[in-house]
């Protein structure tokens, strides 16, 4: 077995040094009745070549990975510069662990410090942590932070119903252990944004306001109105940005006066990976830094006065505070945070802006191409790179028929809103050409009539 280096002769020497006769003598502490008589029934061991053949066969059953895809809805395929994956394969990064020993981990620590810097700047917030599991858990942790630290001990959490359904579901799960009730702000059927009248739900008992922009339908909320309503009652304003490339052009959470801003870093150079791993983003204001969950890296000096970096403010964390910790999270999505850092470093401010502008243009391309079909825009609100389409038939059926033509058309809104069974959410990114948009429109016309 290539991962097990000890030879039989060495095993013998080691057993002699320990003073036992066989390896099994080392397991006498395990009760006999639970020692396995036979190893677990796994498949027969495969060689490397057999594994490659097996995985190629299995991969062949993932036809969707190679199809022309317009899938978005919380996970987006973007251009990823080649250097990212090449550099991620530096095993000095990927085979290291949490930087407990700063002298032996300056590479990881500096990379995290730079990640914190670039994410804080991207969100226009004071400070970012070293990352969370994903956007959904980051959002739930943000609400828990607000609940724990609200001076008025308020418990009403007002959430936009246009927030990604997985985020709402995850939040509800996390709230099982807390006192806090979710109140949903319904969306306007015309605009696809939170309805103006629903902002009245943000009242004096409201601890936090959580919303996503662009929202799950791809529509950009009336972010200034939501911010104003939250500020009026001094509730914690918590915007979530999942399609983070939009921040190349879109108003940043910090510009709205966010108290905590969260998001998903997957769009920043990370493959879609069937939904994970991505990287959760968590930012806040300086005065809240000691209340925030997650790892933090800070700058300091070594004994010779040289600039260096360490894990810091760990007094918040569970290995010291145990049950009184700000969270149970004890790691970050290190390698994915590194990928997002490399992406932001490579794109730079100009590149990211161009990506965002290209996304706006591609969507426009698709909107124009669709003019010749029977599909209508479902909502009037402004968008970034997604389109909610109102179809003359059930979206599920359209998706099936377009898939048979080699096109993954999008996400059916009915997956989470059964009543919206004729709405399809389609995403275009810079990854598509205008010709791809044309193929989408032609295929759709074939299915629903042009």
């Amino acid at each position: 077995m290539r991962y097990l280096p000890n030879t039989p002769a060495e095993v013998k020497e080691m057993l002699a040094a320990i003073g036992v006769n066989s390896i099994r003598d080392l397991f006498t502490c395990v009760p006999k009745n639970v020692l396995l008589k036979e190893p677990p029934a796994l498949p027969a061991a495969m060689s490397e070549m057999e594994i490659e053949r097996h995985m190629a066969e299995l991969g062949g059953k993932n036809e969707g990975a190679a199809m022309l895809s317009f899938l978005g809805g919380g996970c987006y395929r973007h251009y990823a510069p080649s250097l990212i994956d090449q550099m991620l394969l530096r095993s000095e990064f990927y085979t290291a662990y949490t930087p407990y020993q700063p002298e032996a981990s300056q590479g990881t620590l500096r990379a995290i410090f730079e990640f914190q810097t670039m994410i804080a700047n991207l969100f226009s917030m004071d400070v970012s942590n070293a990352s969370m599991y994903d956007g959904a858990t980051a959002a739930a942790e943000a609400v828990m932070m607000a609940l724990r630290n609200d001076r008025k001990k308020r418990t009403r959490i007002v959430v936009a119903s246009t927030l990604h359904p997985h985020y709402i579901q995850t939040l509800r799960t996390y709230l099982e252990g807390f006192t806090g009730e979710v109140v949903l702000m319904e969306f306007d059927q015309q605009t696809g944004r939170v309805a103006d009248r629903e902002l009245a739900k943000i009242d004096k008992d409201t601890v936090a306001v959580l919303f996503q922009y662009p929202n799950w339908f791809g529509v950009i909320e009336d972010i200034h109105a939501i911010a104003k309503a939250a500020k009026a009652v001094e509730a914690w304003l918590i915007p979530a940005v999942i399609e983070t490339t939009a921040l190349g052009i879109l108003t940043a959470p910090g510009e709205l006066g966010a108290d905590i801003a969260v998001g998903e870093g997957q769009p920043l150079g990370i493959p879609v990976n069937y939904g994970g791993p991505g990287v959760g983003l968590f930012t806040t204001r300086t005065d809240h830094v000691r209340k925030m969950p997650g790892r933090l890296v800070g700058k300091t000096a070594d004994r010779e006065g040289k600039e260096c970096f360490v894990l810091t403010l760990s007094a918040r964390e569970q290995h010291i505070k145990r049950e009184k910790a700000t969270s149970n999270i004890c790691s970050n999505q290190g390698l994915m945070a590194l990928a997002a850092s490399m992406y932001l470093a490579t794109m730079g401010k100009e590149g990211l802006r161009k990506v965002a502008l290209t996304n706006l243009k591609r969507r426009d391309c698709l909107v124009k191409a669709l003019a010749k079909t029977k599909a209508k825009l479902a909502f009037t609100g402004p968008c970034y790179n997604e389109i909610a389409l109102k179809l003359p038939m059930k979206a599920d059926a359209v998706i099936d028929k377009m898939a048979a033509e080699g096109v993954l058309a999008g996400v059916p809104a009915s997956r989470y809103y059964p009543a919206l069974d004729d709405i399809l959410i389609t995403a275009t990114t810079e990854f598509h050409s205008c010709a791809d948009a044309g193929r989408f429109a032609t295929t759709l016309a074939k299915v629903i009539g042009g």
Partner: protein
Amino acid sequence: MSYTSNGFTDIKFHEEVLFERSRPGRAAYSLPAEDLTGAEDLLPADLRRKGLDLPELSEIDVVRHYTRLSTYNFSIDHTFYPLGSCTMKYNPKINEKMARLAAFANLHPETPLGYAQGTLKMLFDLQHMLAEVSGFAEVSLNPAAGAHGEYTGLGVIRKYHQKRGDTKRKKVIIPDSAHGTNPASCAINGFEAVVLESGPDGKICLDCLKGMLNDEVAAIMLTNPNTLGVFETDICAITKACHDAGALVYGDGANLNAILGVARPGDMGIDVMHFNLHKTFSTPHGGGGPGSGPVGVAKHLVEFLPNPVVRKEGDRYVFALLKDSMGRVRSFYGNVGIALRAYVYLLELGKEHIAEVAEQAVLNANYIKAKLKDIYNVKYPNDTLHEAVFDDSKLPNHVTTMDVAKGLIDRGYHPPTVYFPLIVHGALMVEPTETESKETMDGFIDALKDIAEKAASDPQSILNAPTKTYIKRPDETLAARKPVLKYGGEK
């Protein structure tokens, strides 16, 4: 090669923080030439941001920056990395290659199921294999990390008691040797953590436990072998006592490597356990993540698993939603890219080699313990499996565990976990794993012997360590007192 260096020298390039390499007008991106004039007008003016502060770099700047940073790290691929409780085993290269196959990496989570059967089959088969090696009825791959698995497993326990109307059960008993995440996971689940003091042998005192069990106890959370590497020999009696009192048993799977293929937690009466794919199943630690913390449950808890679950209907793999689920714990379906690496690892081990993992891991740990126990004190010497916990009580001249750690860095080894578990003062927790050879461990043993000798003969040389690294003993107090958490953050 001798202990004095492990071949470790100090060839390092100075490297600035990324922003200092930035020059106005540099670019490292490659996008299609396209006229973007007017594109911003597609977005209303009041939705556009003001400025964006990101560095401007060329491609070689970025590549050289990260290459240089990588040289400031110790990693498994460099050297022995015996971080106790973290199971820093070798990360096979085939795992990385397979995870990057376009057919898997480019599959979108909203792909219609009929076009994603390859990944769904992989997930289903991995669930089954993990269930088989652990003795559980079903496994969920949703949780993103070990602590997230703890959170999820405790949620399953909460749901179980809720469904039975047994709402008085708010306490979870946790031994004092447990990972800090255990009580923290209880707190965010709304449970109260109650500490159980370890017995004189480092194990759970069965009678003490029985004295604490009552109708307010929801569960006990234990790690077996525990964080001392000591196997809980009374495990079957412990689980029985808990079940008799109406409590469930949560197993922290951090130390599963000690028994993988040899014994199964499910057979010991454990009801719920999380796995750490990044420990036991060879997926990379990635400098802190991404991990993966699947949860396995016994039959009576399957209905409470997080949503969704992957099931097989006829010859088709599908997602199912459970009515009594503890809920959704994250977006989509877990860290699928990490699960795939663990799947590949299990394919390579197969039935033939699975038991050799625990056997060789336990052999290696006991070898290190035997070789060093006369020099470094072992507070709890009996019934240890995959790790050895030493302390600094035998070292002279006020040389502490922290100094030993820094001395090891100078000798080219990543230090063990230090000052944990908390019940051993000055703990040095060594977990070699099965993927290290005898000569690697001999080098490490010699290095620790050398440090102990120098502690007596030339203590200053140890107190000054490390001397070969890029930076030396950073001021952590300064970092916490005046936190600078981003570039330019001093202002």
